[in-house]
């Protein structure tokens, strides 16, 4: 009888859930191509997942309007996993086993990606991660690809710029979230190659609201020429504000983790003069007309901003690239056979995306070179190209 009771409760809940969920997908048509995704739409990494999901929805709609791929409609199956590895693991099982998707785009964060890689590899299904860390594709995993530049590349780009400006003594203040922690490690490992020494190394928590104590210590470290702040979310904006509040004279570098208009909006005037590496998307209008990426990035930017009424971020761009890589591979493979699609993704060459020009290979499941990154500086509240 207890069981009966539970079953009835569940049945009621199910009905309620179905009734409440606007636009919840009905039974799948047999002929659709099912694209699975599990993003960080809520929680501390929602600024990643939110534009990513919006991008996927918008493009799948428009691709379907144009007739779909291989004459079949696309269907998006999505689960919000926040930043939680456990939710990601459950979601990927659901996508693979229950929804039987053909290809997976996502997740948003390194932690959720790393948690699901063993399952993806065992199941044998192509997955294009939208997360940053280099560990995702190095060493190479057979079924796992990714579109965003790695944190290691960001470090190299930043250190290259510092070297050019003659900075060799720097301080770092990193977020303790997965992104900040990973990039902090990569940058510290890479610094010596550029003749740069990290003389101050501070951190802050994901919910911290005041970083002046950490910055005060950095300020009082003698001879620093620049400060690098790997992190995402609101943290870097607070660091930037505190940095100016303390009247710190050195240059401030941010990471590609803040590559959205939101950062400038939050940090306000304090963001003036801050440099960061980012994809061409942020400076779409400033690109030279002969820049191969110009058409792609301007097109995406216009479409996104028209549909959603908010500024583009590079994160949505990663999802755009992931979707394009997946559907063009499916188109080339002529089927949704997983091994064939995987092989076609791996053969991607010369795809021009929002993140850069992609040349994949069996040894490189990212396919972006350092040149895909642009060094930007914030001037008058706008992104401007430095090089």
């Amino acid at each position: 009888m207890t069981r009966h009771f539970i079953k009835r409760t569940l049945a009621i809940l199910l009905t309620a859930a179905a009734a409440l969920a606007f636009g919840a997908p009905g039974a799948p048509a047999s002929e659709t191509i099912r694209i699975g995704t599990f993003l960080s739409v809520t929680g501390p990494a929602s600024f990643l997942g939110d534009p990513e999901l919006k991008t996927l929805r918008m493009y799948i709609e428009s691709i379907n309007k144009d007739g779909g791929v291989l004459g079949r409609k696309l269907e998006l199956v999505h689960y919000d996993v926040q930043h939680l590895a456990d939710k990601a693991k459950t979601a990927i099982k659901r996508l693979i086993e229950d929804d039987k998707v053909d290809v997976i785009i996502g997740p948003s964060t390194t932690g959720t990606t790393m948690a699901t890689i063993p399952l993806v590899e065992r199941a044998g299904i192509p997955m294009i991660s939208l997360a940053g860390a280099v560990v995702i594709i190095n060493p190479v995993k057979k079924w796992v690809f990714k579109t965003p530049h790695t944190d290691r590349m960001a470090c190299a780009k930043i250190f290259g710029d510092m070297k050019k400006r003659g900075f060799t003594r720097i301080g770092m203040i990193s977020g303790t979230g997965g992104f900040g922690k990973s990039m902090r490690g990569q940058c510290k490992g890479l610094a010596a190659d550029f003749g740069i020494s990290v003389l101050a190394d501070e951190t802050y928590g994901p919910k911290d609201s005041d970083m002046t104590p950490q910055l005060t210590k950095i300020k009082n470290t003698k001879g620093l020429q620049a400060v690098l702040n790997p992190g995402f979310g609101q943290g870097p904006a607070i660091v930037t504000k505190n940095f100016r509040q303390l009247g710190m004279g050195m240059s401030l570098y941010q990471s590609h983790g803040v590559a959205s208009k939101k950062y400038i909006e939050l940090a306000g005037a304090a963001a003036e003069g801050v440099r960061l590496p980012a994809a061409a998307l942020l400076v779409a209008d400033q690109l030279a007309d002969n820049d191969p990426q110009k058409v792609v990035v301007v097109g995406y930017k216009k479409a996104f901003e028209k549909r959603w009424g908010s500024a583009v971020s590079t994160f949505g761009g990663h999802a755009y690239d992931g979707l394009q890589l997946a559907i063009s591979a499916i188109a080339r493979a002529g089927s949704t056979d997983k091994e064939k699609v995987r092989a076609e993704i791996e053969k991607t060459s010369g795809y021009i995306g929002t993140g850069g020009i992609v040349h994949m290979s069996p040894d490189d499941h990212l396919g972006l070179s350092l040149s895909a990154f642009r060094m930007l500086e914030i001037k008058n509240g706008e992104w401007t190209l430095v090089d």
Partner: protein
Amino acid sequence: MFAEFLQFLLSGVTVGAAYGLVALGFSIIYNASHVINFAQGEFVMLGGMSTVFLMAAGLPMPVAVVLAVLVTVVLGLLLEKLAIEPARGAGVVPLIIITIGASIFLRGVAQVAMDREFHAMPPFTGDAPIMIAGATILPQSLWVFGGMAVMGMLLWYFFARARFGKAMLATAYNPLAARLIGVNTRLVLLCSFGLSALLGSVAGILLAPITFTSYDVGIMLGLKGFCAAILGGMGHGAGAVVGGLIVGIAEAMGAGYISSEYKDAIAFIIILLVLFFMPNGLFGKRTTERV
């Protein structure tokens, strides 16, 4: 070296003042009902977020602030009326769960009604840092600190002088006796939620220009405020303020002198030590159980 110390101190006092306001909210509700309101942090969030959205809707800042406080107070009253009152007489654990449910609910509502992004709010009086002996402080920090001082004073006056404030204290001391002498204890309970929602929203609005605001800023502020309230002795007004300042300053000093990675742990380590050695907090009264 002194400038460094002073900088840590100023940082700590700013954050600590906000913790203190949240702790006061905890204490007021605790006094009236012995409920620990885990949704206290959400009041902070609602204050900040509502102001931002009302301003975005085109309202001038002062109007937006007043409306935001009102919205939060109304939600606080509704929370008491709809969730706490029907469960009166339930034990400590169920009430904790109800308020946790309420906090998840309020966060969900804010997420849907507003959005999931971080928002900046303009400072009340510019953001040119003020230099003090080599350390700097933002004008907004003074607003936070001043806000806490004013609220603390008003509360003190309310409880020490105003008739209704005394009625609230009487209810805290002995609800049955208070009812017998004609205090409307249900009203007192209701008002305690309104009052703490007011405090929370004020803290949220004062703090938003410094820390930004989003639908989930309330979680950590709530927990730290709870720490501060316990540290000062649950239900003790001045204790809550002092507890808040201690937690804030300890965090800033810890981040500055010990380890920024363990900054968040510092508040909780202090709390554990205090509870181990002074189970009633710094100012709490020793209680003996009657059998």
